[in-house]
Each structure stands twice: as structure tokens, then as C-alpha cells.
């Protein structure tokens, strides 16, 4: 499928619309459907650029959040009566914490409510992750108004340095593997995280310095060499997003 050249805000607005609908409908099935639609858009529309590769990581992060959210939802919280699947030992809590229980019977209802809440939260994360992956952060910076300078710098750093870090993760893991360390599993994260954090900090500072020395935000007004135009295609996509909100 042909890749459309869209306004950098289009996918962000669309994702926002989808996220609102997911929150409004509050149904895990709708949330999963939204993730599926996003996946299809990503596969057909993403560019072969560093930020295009960040979607898999969004999915991984979402999966972790879903796991922890469900685990905590099952362990801690208000008991919901229903069919008991299995029972966990109850941890005694002081009497001034009424209504909260750690452990206890795990009912089918409790498990499913924890899961469905988790799915909805994750779907919203995935929807925004998809927008980040579909839009070039550099183009996004160009359309942001100048008076939100600090915000603009933060956005560029978050959206341009972080996806590049996905490439760095690969490189560092490869190096660690060559040192004969295991590159999979939880303990490897620490080994990757430290060189990664170091690099991301250094890079962010370097980018900020480069933008500053080139006069970014020095003038209150900015001219456009090649204006980014809002086309009818952008309007169509945004309208479809609004329609989704209206229908749900």
C-alpha cells in the first residue's frame, strides 16, 4: 500500500480520538479491536526510519503493564464474589485498613475485571505509541508553535532520541552477547539500561545544544521554507476519528 504524506498532527489527533472512544466504550473487545486497527495502519503506513521501529517496543511495554496490572489487580483489592478459581493465602493487614485485602480467593469475576481494565489501559498506550511511530518527530517539531519552546525541545528529545535508542539497545545487546553475557531475561536489562541511559542523556544534551546554537526559538516568529500543508486527506482521517467518537 502506498504511504501517504500526511500532516504530522493528523495521526496524533486520530489517536487521541480513538483513545477517547476506547475510554468511553470501556469494553476490552473494542480496545483489542482498536489495537488491531492500529497494528494494520502501522504495518502499511510506517516509514523505514528509526521512529518507525519503535512500535514493537510499545507493544512489549504494554504487555508488561498488562501483566503487572492484572497480577496486582488479582492480589490486592476489594474482593468480588463469584466462581472461585483458586485461593491464595490471605495476608493479615492492620484493622485501620478496612476493605483492602491482599491474597484470598481469586474469583473468575475478579480476574476478568482486572484483565479487562488492564487491556483498556494498554490499548490507550498502544494507540499513542502508534502515533509516535507513524509521525516523524522532526516534522512534528516544525508545526509546533514557538512559544511552547521548552515543550518543543522536550518533545523532540522524547520522540527523536528515544526511538534512536531502540537502535542503540540492539547494538548494546549485541556487544554484551559478545562479552559472553546472556542477552535475554530480566537480569540483562540492568546491563543494557546503564549504557543506554548514559547514551540517551548525552544525546539529548547534544541535540539541545545543537538546536540552541542554530538559533531555535531565538525569534518569536518563524518562516517556512516548505510549508507543511493540511490536505483533504488529513481532514478525512481526522473526521473519521471524530465519527468514531460520535458513534461510541
Amino acid at each position, binding site marked *: 500500500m502506498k504511504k501517504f504524506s500526511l500532516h504530522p498532527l493528523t495521526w496524533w489527533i486520530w489517536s487521541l480520538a480513538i483513545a477517547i472512544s476506547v475510554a468511553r466504550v470501556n469494553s476490552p473487545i473494542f480496545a483489542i479491536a482498536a489495537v488491531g486497527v492500529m497494528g494494520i495502519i502501522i504495518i502499511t503506513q510506517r516509514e523505514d526510519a528509526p521512529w518507525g521501529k519503535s512500535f514493537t517496543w510499545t507493544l512489549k511495554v504494554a504487555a508488561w503493564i498488562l501483566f503487572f496490572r492484572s497480577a496486582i489487580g488479582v492480589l490486592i483489592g476489594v474482593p468480588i464474589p463469584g466462581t472461585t478459581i483458586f485461593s491464595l493465602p490471605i495476608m493479615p493487614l492492620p484493622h485501620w485498613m478496612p476493605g483492602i485485602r491482599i491474597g484470598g480467593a481469586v474469583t473468575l469475576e475478579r480476574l476478568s475485571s482486572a484483565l479487562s481494565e488492564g487491556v483498556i489501559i494498554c490499548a490507550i498506550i498502544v494507540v499513542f505509541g502508534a502515533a509516535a511511530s507513524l509521525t516523524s518527530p522532526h516534522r512534528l517539531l516544525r508545526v509546533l508553535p514557538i512559544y511552547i519552546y521548552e515543550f518543543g525541545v522536550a518533545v523532540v528529545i522524547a520522540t527523536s532520541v528515544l526511538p534512536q535508542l531502540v537502535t542503540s539497545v540492539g547494538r548494546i545487546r549485541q556487544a554484551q552477547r559478545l562479552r*559472553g553475557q546472556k542477552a535475554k531475561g530480566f537480569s540483562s536489562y540492568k546491563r543494557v539500561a546503564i*549504557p543506554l541511559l548514559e547514551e540517551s542523556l548525552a544525546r539529548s*544534551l547534544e541535540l539541545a*545544544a*545543537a538546536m*540552541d*546554537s542554530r538559533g531555535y526559538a531565538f525569534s518569536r516568529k518563524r518562516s517556512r521554507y*516548505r510549508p507543511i500543508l493540511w490536505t483533504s486527506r488529513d481532514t478525512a482521517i481526522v473526521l473519521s476519528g471524530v465519527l468514531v467518537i460520535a458513534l461510541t
Partner: protein
Amino acid sequence: MIKFSNVSLVYPNSTTTVLENLNLEITEGELVLVIGPTGSGKSSLLRLINGLVPHHTGGILAGDVSVNGLSTREVKPGGLAHLIGIVGQNPMNGFVADIVEEELAFAMEALNLPNETMRKRIEEALDFMSLTTLRTRAIATLSGGEQQRVAIASALVMHPKVLVLDEPTSALDPIAAEEVLSILQRLVHDLSITVVIAEHKLERVIGFADRIVYINGDGRTEVGTAAEIMKTSPIAPPIVHLARVLALDNAGLSVRDMRRNTQELRESISISPSNHIAPSTIPVIEIKQLSVTYGSKPALNSITATIFDNEIVAVMGRNGAGKSSLLTSIAGVGSSEVGSIRIHSLDSKKLTGKSRRETIGYIPQEPSDLLYAQSVAKECEQADKDSEIEAGTTFELLNQLVPGISLRTHPRDLSEGQRLGLALSIVLSSNPKVLVLDEPTRGLDYEAKKMLTQILIGFAQSFNRAVVIATHDVELVAELATRVIFLADGDIVADGPTVDVLLSSPAFAPQISKVMSPVPWLTVRDVIAALGQKT
């Protein structure tokens, strides 16, 4: 144009002063070269010019830096954007747009220049830097040399009076470096732009420099013409070392001057010393019909080569010739490859854990990728445990390689050379059968390179190991390698003893060989050895 008056600089939490009472006036159209050991403050000096130091980095600045009458005390870096173009060490990290044209427009858009001016200036800059064919390309897909040119072009569109470049050729192959430097030369001569460069590879730039600022690292600085500084400077290109060895005064800094001065010497020598050691016949790495492709792009086309015991093989070639692909394939972490690689008849892909450490040692382009502990001590402990050797052995090794590193230091606070030393001692603690290094000399000064040369030669000879090193640094190859494999577009175009391969290509010939040609000497050491034989 640029005026440093009584400038002193101290960074917070640091006990040493970077600069002390520096007085320097750079006039219009001058090309000034900043040299000094790694970590001595070359970058700081460059960043003082447009006020990034101290506005961005913090630190205490005494005295005053002014450019064209504007003091950096009063004006922030953004306010000097129309006056100063600054190109960082790694231009990729400073790019703010995806497409070449947009990158060029960025600074002009920020200063709200009218559209017609922008169009005109972008055309000019594209023409001047020969980038017209690349104007709509994505920056990420360009080669290192092209990226460097884009970075310079995007500074030039502002019509700056001053251009500041931090190690503009460190990542480039000799040919691309030559291109970039001749462009700078043209800027100085045709447009009278003031250029300030920091560079380690003096042999590449010294011919262009009007003046040199030598930074010692303890605050002291020396300023003078290239010839003045080179009389005493410990940092000097091979040609100057040669002049010192031959006790030639005023020998000049170019190959031409040096040849005139050494004519007699060359004619008096007829013997060509043959220091060829018969290569060992025990194969260590056997590469058979190796092909690697990235997407639809071939990186290596059916390469066959055998590397023997005791050999130090330099893999050379232009940026993007397939050097890294070959190295990662040897190390067994390459992707989408056809063909076979055997190291002592083991498949390097299937190695894990201890057996991997004992077979292949690999130093990546960023040695810090290997390091993750919070201190040198912990890093060494981990290596001892991994290699199952007595506690303290790795640190002892590190102390031999790079003396004077404190155990408590955080690996991040080490200098480039020390960090490479630490990574090397960790890898060498397992005593691997093969050592692979991917461009280890980026940002290393001559001292650190000398250390690296000694370590690698010692390792290869005393343990009969094979070393494979990818590098752009011809002088390092001349000092170090016994054999050179030359890659171009994924094919081996030359493979043989260092002397033969290096001398056959003028762009890749080291300085000494250019001076001494047709006598096949590559390094100052060769000359000393041969002269010693004669007398």
C-alpha cells in the same frame, strides 16, 4: 574576529582548570587548529566561542570571549547563530530534520528569514558542498562523509563569519576526510571565513593550519604557527617525528618539503630491508564464500579468506564498504548471511557464555557498550568471575595496559583511551583465541594509539593469537598490522602484506612512505631500524 581575553575556565566538581588565562585573537580568514591530548578541553575551547560553554554546560568562566564584538557573556548561543556555524563531533546527533533540504532550512526558519532568501541560500550551499543530487534524500541514509557535508552546509546557509568544527574527520575514511578538508580550505580562501578545528589526526590537517593552539590539559596553552608548535609538541604527526629522528631543522610539515630535505638520505640507501616474518600456517579463522545482505542491499559478496595464527589483520576500505559486516560475521552475531565462518573449526554463531569468551574477544565501536558496572573495581570483579580466574587478575592486567586508574572511578569518567583499555583488559582476561576490534581509534590521541599498538602486538606475539581490526587510520595500520584486507563495495580488492597493500594506493599510503618512496618504509620505526643497520 574572535577574541579571548584572560579566559579561565573551571568545571564544577572538578579539581583541574581547563584553561588558565588564555589570550588569543583570531583574525578574519584564519584557519586555527586546536590540538591536545584527549580530555584536555579542546571541545570546551570550541564551545566557548559561541557560548555553549558555560551557558549549556555550567562551569565558571573568568575573562571574556567575544566574536565580532559580541561578548558571549551578554548574548546566548541562539543570538550568535547568524555569526557562528558549529558542527559537532557526531553530526548525526545534532540533526533536527529528516530531509537534507529541511535540515539546511532549519536555522534560517528559526531566524524568520524570508522565503526567497532561504531558497537562494539553500541553492548556493547545495552547490558549494556538491550536495545537489542528495537534496531530497533522508539524512539517515547518507554516508558519514555526506552527513558531514550536510552539517557544514547547514551552517553555511547562515552566511556565518566563523565556522567551528569538532573532529570533522574522525569518523571518515582518508578520501572522504580529504574532501571535507579541501572544502574547508576553499571556504577560508574564497569566502574568508574564519575556521576553528579540533582534530587528533594531525597528519590530515596540519598542512591547512595557519596557527595552532596547543592545550596541555592542566590549563596551560601555547599558541603559535604550525612550525613553531611542532618544534616541541609531544603531539605530532609522523612526518615531524621523522624530522626529529633525522635531526633536520626547519624540515617543513608537508611531504614535498620533507622529500626535498631527505633527498640525499634516500639516494644513499640502496638496500630495501626485508623484515617479512614468514607467516604461520595454522589457520585460525576460515571464511568461505561469505555473503551478507541488508534488505535488498548486498554488504558482502561471497568473500573467502583465511586468517592465520600470529597475524594482525587490518580491514580497510571506504565508509560503507562492508568492514563492520565482515567483523560482526566473524564474531558470529551478523544477520542474514550465507556461507561459513569457522574459528578453530568452531562455528562462531553457536558459541555462548564461557566458550565464546575464550574463543572470540570483540571490542565494539563504542567500548562503553561493554561496560555496565558502577565502578572499575566491580567491572574487573565481574570479568574475574566470568573468566574463572584469580580475583584481581583483570585489574592487574588493566594496570599493565593503562597504569594509574583508580579502582573507584566510574567507567563513564574515564578518558576515551582509558575506557578502551578497560574494555580490552576485560576481554583479554579470558585470553581469547581471536581478538576483533571495530574502529577502536575514534577520538584517541597519539599516546592512546601507541598504547593500543603495543597491547595488540604483545597479545598477538606472546600468545600466538590472531587480531582483526577495522580502521580508517592508515598510520595505525602501518605501525600495527602484518596484513591488510582491503574491501570495496563488499568485495575484497586487495589482500596481502601491509607494505604491498598500503603502497599500492596513494590515498591510503602513510606519510613516511610518501616521503621515503620508492624505499618501502611505512613508519618512523622502519627508518630508525634501517639506519641503525647501516651505521
